[in-house]
């Protein structure tokens, strides 16, 4: 239910600036994820909202109330982190009802909310088990239940699935979102797993070096990122630099190592002739065939082919020496392209992203530090 505002948040550890002026609103009922490379400040940000870290500057408002100096227990939040901290000597039921107990709720009145929560999390069969008897997934579900039974409507999740096996993690992330939506909670979820962020969030924040790079709904950030770093960090992308040869309204012709690539551009201010630019394209949005294609089609050699189950990852090299990563679905063992094959890549105009060359330079803009 709560709405959170973060205003001008700064935090420094020695010489390292962990948060460098963060302004952010998290809306009522929103599921928001924070992603970014190690050291980008995402954990410091969620800890500041939780009240575990005291910011040097700025404010945290929960429902328009300034909570910046309130300790964690007075903020009305549920906080779940990666290292599962259940009481080892208590069974699942007692762990989950702990929050109500310390608030002085009588045993009889505890039963209903605890049972509802256990039902919701499919933990009914585990009530009398102790933490060490549970799988990693069940343990983390117990921790989440415990965080929520105390009645908090703001759930802060700091890598809540990080310690689990991949398979369990994938199942649990959908359950987590369903829970948050069913209970009408506001959730802030820090993760290093970008697929997790894409699949559960209403909005994602991409952070780098203590700042917010971009905020938006998953699909928008993935398909139409405004920043180069977003394209780099969320999913995979090929980056190619070029120079504008011709402009006709939004139609562009770009020179890339003597190849001519057509694309469209709606950047403001518009790009100019002879200006350098960066093209980006997702590996799964490149077409790779044995025959030439219609749009931006170039002959290439297959230099690497990796089977990854539902798809094959190819590295191809064009005649003008551009290396591209391409991901295609499996056709059949025989028909798939193999290393050494000649083929054609095509970069469809609708799938091409175009960026201005950043002031700091391309390499720096894409760097994870």
């Amino acid at each position, binding site marked *: 239910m709560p709405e959170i505002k973060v205003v001008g948040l700064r935090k420094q550890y020695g010489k390292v600036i962990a948060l460098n002026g963060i302004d952010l609103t998290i809306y009522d009922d929103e599921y928001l994820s924070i992603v970014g*490379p*190690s050291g980008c400040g995402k954990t410091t940000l969620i800890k500041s909202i939780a009240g575990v870290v005291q910011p040097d500057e700025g404010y945290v408002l929960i429902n328009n109330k300034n909570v910046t100096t309130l300790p964690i227990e007075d903020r009305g939040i549920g906080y779940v982190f990666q290292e599962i901290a259940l009481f080892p000597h208590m069974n699942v039921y007692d762990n989950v009802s702990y929050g109500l107990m310390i608030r002085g709720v009588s045993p009889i009145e505890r039963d209903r909310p605890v049972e509802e929560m256990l039902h919701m999390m499919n933990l009914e069969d585990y009530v009398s088990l102790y933490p060490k008897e549970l*799988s*990693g997934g069940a343990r983390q579900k117990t921790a989440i239940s415990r965080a929520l039974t105390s009645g908090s409507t703001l759930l802060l999740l700091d890598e809540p699935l990080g310690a689990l*096996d*991949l*398979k*369990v993690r*994938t199942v649990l992330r*959908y359950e987590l979102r369903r829970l948050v939506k069913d209970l009408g909670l506001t959730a802030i979820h820090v993760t*290093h*797993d*970008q*697929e997790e962020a*894409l*699949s*559960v969030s209403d909005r994602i924040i991409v952070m780098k070096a203590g700042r917010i790079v971009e905020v938006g709904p*998953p*699909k928008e950030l*993935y*398909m139409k990122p405004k920043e180069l770093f977003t394209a780099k*960090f*969320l*999913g*995979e992308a090929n980056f190619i630099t070029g120079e504008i040869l011709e402009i006709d309204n939004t139609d562009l012709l770009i020179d890339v190592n003597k190849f001519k690539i057509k694309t469209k551009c709606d950047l403001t201010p518009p790009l100019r002739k002879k200006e350098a630019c960066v093209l980006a394209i*997702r*590996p*799964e*949005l490149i077409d790779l065939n044995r025959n030439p294609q219609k749009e931006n089609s170039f002959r290439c050699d297959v230099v*690497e082919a*990796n*089977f*990854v*189950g*539902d*798809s094959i*990852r190819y590295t191809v090299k064009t005649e003008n020496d551009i290396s591209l990563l391409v*991901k295609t*679905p499996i056709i059949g*063992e025989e028909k798939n392209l193999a290393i050494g094959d000649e083929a054609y890549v095509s970069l469809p105009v609708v799938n091409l992203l175009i960026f201005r060359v950043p002031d700091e330079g391309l390499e720096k803009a894409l760097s*994870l530090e």
Partner: protein
Amino acid sequence: MPTLRLLNVTKRFDNVKALDGVTFDVKDREYVCILGSTGSGKTTLLRTIAGIIKPDEGEIFIDSRNVNKTLAEDRNTVYVPQTYALFPHMTVLENVAFGPLAKDNSKVNAEQTAMNVLRLVRLDKRIDAYPNELSGGMQQRVALARGLASGAKLLLLDEPLGALDVRLRLELRVQLRRLAKESGFTVIHVTHDQEEAMTIGDRILVLRKGRLQQYGTPYHVYNRPEKIFVANFVGNTNFLEAIVESRSREGSTLTLREGLKIRVLDSSFEPEEAVIVALREEKISVTPEPRGDEPNRLSGEIIEVHFLGSHVRYVIRLTNGDEVAARVAIKEARNELNHGDWVSISFDPMNSHIYEYPMLGLQSELEAS
């Protein structure tokens, strides 16, 4: 030119069989990934090969020589554990050069070897740092480099990329394989990440509760999973309960709950037999117009939409109440389908597998431990 063979290797801890009759062989210069979840016995298996754990039963051969009685240090293998044990008082370079130096190399040669592998793991700029000045991921890379530089040709790697940032992990796994191939290593690489195993392994060994489930090329394991567990653990799969209605030389007709019919190629089960049908999420097509239920074209309602970046995942509730997830490549998912839409799902009979209905029910087969 190391080869490896395990015959019926069993290891008990207390009364639990951590390894249960494991038999497999590894060819010279082969890259084998051992894939399993937490508690599957994969680390025990690796440590048994390394000679750190003595098996209760069975034989281990390295280069056709029984090494059951050979000490770990005389097996000519390098074991790189998940928890890196670096010398704290030595720099990165000294740590990595330690092995080559001990093998009567001159200091110059040893440092040359060390530098080569340090470049590979991207630590050539941190050679003078001490372990405690490095992040966990960097320390793991030093440990890996030390293993690579040691001169032994049989490498035993326990989650070598586990502590790394996703980005770096993706990059390093390709390089690790390349290096192993170029330097002629035979590698056993333990991981719980199925995509990592498929990208990097010549063959994959799937382990569950100490037992070998399947051993084969990534393509084989993915496309011909021999057990329900493998079909679930490797890739993303739907499982539906069905009864065989009829069979012919061309395949079988199965009845799902509430009388829905599907056709599959497998005809190895008798009519009336209860079976489980496995359908890969990415092999199911979704079309907007429901046309009623006919074999392999079933209608249903979209109850969840998950944006995954390169794919969109739809969870569809069929008219019989069964839920099926379909993973559609973003290229094909342009015409957007939403929560609540009625759609048709269809699949090629070729792309399904059927299994005998498990004695203890489906759930017991899916659980990793």
